[in-house]
């Protein structure tokens, strides 16, 4: 009799479908094959670009400002007279970047250092997925910069206007390989090739470099960001004492929904890749550090998106 009752109970428990089973009927999470969001908060780390592009039909207005060196730079030493570099401007860059698609961004910028007018393009070749089927994101970055700087050496042999304009061009080609290891930690590697159409000896037209950068989130809005670029080639090799140094930057990034503010310190003088990678002549050791900030503001230009609300 007891056995029968037991059997009966077993039947009963089988008949009732538990709530957890109800949810199990719903199947697997299909969103895991989606791409990872927010490897970095903005299109830049400190000096280097990040893998992030501007979303479709959005405009990113990006302002960078770099003050003078805090301590000893290649041509001056800061004191209280210039408030340790605060009264000086190393470089200012204003950029407009527009997302043609979510993967493809074009942009335009002007920076003070060597009067560079830049056209840039960024394309996401690969996007890391949540399930790590694609383990890394790879973004291509390329630019073309025209320097209108009044440097007589460019005209030393009285070239034609066309030849002179060509001399003033430089190009950057860069792959940005990045991985979001966790919600907090993202790392990026930047193999870079820079070509200047015209350089002054002993410099060479072609320069190769490898950048490395990363972000560590402290809270949802505040992150610590760092980057460093290593230059290959004898001229800029650390310790060769040719007056060149590798740019290193560190700072804090604050994201406030549409705005991203970054405040940082770096030994780089210029703001665009064409210049800061190859033309950094100050070192952290002597106080050739500059206070610098970036402000990024995102505007949504799509009309249909506005109408929906």
């Amino acid at each position, binding site marked *: 009799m007891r056995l029968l009752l037991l059997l009966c109970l077993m039947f009963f428990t089988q*008949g009732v479908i538990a709530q957890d089973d109800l949810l199990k009927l719903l199947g697997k*999470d299909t969103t895991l094959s989606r791409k990872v969001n927010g490897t970095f908060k903005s299109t830049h780390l400190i000096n280097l670009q990040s893998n992030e592009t501007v979303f479709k039909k959005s405009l990113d207005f990006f302002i960078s400002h770099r003050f003078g060196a805090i301590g000893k730079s290649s041509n001056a030493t800061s004191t209280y007279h210039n408030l340790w570099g605060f009264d000086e401007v190393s470089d200012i860059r204003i950029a407009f970047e527009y997302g043609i698609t979510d993967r493809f961004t074009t942009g335009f910028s002007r920076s003070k250092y060597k009067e560079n007018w830049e056209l840039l393009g960024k394309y996401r070749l690969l996007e890391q997925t949540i399930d790590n089927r694609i383990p890394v994101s790879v973004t291509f970055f390329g630019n073309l910069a025209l320097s209108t700087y009044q440097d007589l050496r460019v005209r030393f042999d009285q070239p034609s206007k066309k030849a002179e304009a060509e001399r003033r061009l430089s190009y950057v080609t860069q792959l940005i390989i990045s991985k979001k290891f966790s919600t907090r930690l993202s790392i990026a590697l930047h193999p870079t090739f820079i070509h200047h159409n015209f350089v002054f000896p002993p410099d060479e037209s072609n320069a190769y470099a490898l950048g490395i950068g990363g972000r560590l989130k402290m809270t949802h809005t505040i992150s610590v960001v760092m980057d460093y670029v290593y230059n290959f080639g004898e001229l800029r090799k650390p310790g060769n004492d040719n007056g060149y140094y590798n740019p290193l930057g560190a700072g804090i990034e604050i994201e406030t929904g549409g705005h991203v503010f970054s405040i940082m310190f770096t030994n780089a003088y210029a703001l665009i890749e064409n210049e800061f990678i190859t033309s950094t002549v100050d070192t952290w050791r002597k106080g050739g550090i500059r206070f610098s900030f970036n402000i990024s503001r995102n505007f949504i230009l799509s009309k249909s998106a506005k109408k929906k609300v």
Partner: protein
Amino acid sequence: MRKIILILITFIGLQGDKVNAQSIYLATGGNGSFFSATNVENIDAKTNSLTSVFNTATEEIAFTVPLRTFKFKSSLMEEHFNEKYVESEKYPNATFKGKINETIDWTKEGTYDITSTGIMNLHGVDQMRTEKGKATVKEGKIIIDCTFNVKLTDYKIEVPKLVMSNIAPDLDIKVNCTYTPYKKVAK
């Protein structure tokens, strides 16, 4: 005694049969949306990836929605929603598991006011809730509509002070699911 057991077995047998074959209803591609209204801006997001299972015999009901499927008017908002607020990498789904409080003949066509009590899980926080809704039985289908309010602090979703004026402290949520009988119970 034997008689009782026999009756019990027959009853359970029938019940079991009913549960397995006819009483389970499934809704896929259900609609969900939320709305946050402030003086500064309105934020709304929609998904049509909500799934739900409803057992008419026991009146147990379960909902789940992958938070990543919510679409916003701007991709940047979508990124912030996933990254900063619901943390969808850690807590990918919002779920509700509960029971309909009213006893309703789910085979009879009509519209019924219902309430459901159960546990809602969002952002890793479980909260016991009772929500009102409307159920319509029509042509062998069941449609459930439900509107409710979620207070962000109840689910430990923090809004930074800087953007507090842009995001409402509580969200209006709408759910709409159409259920059809679930054919096979996988064993």
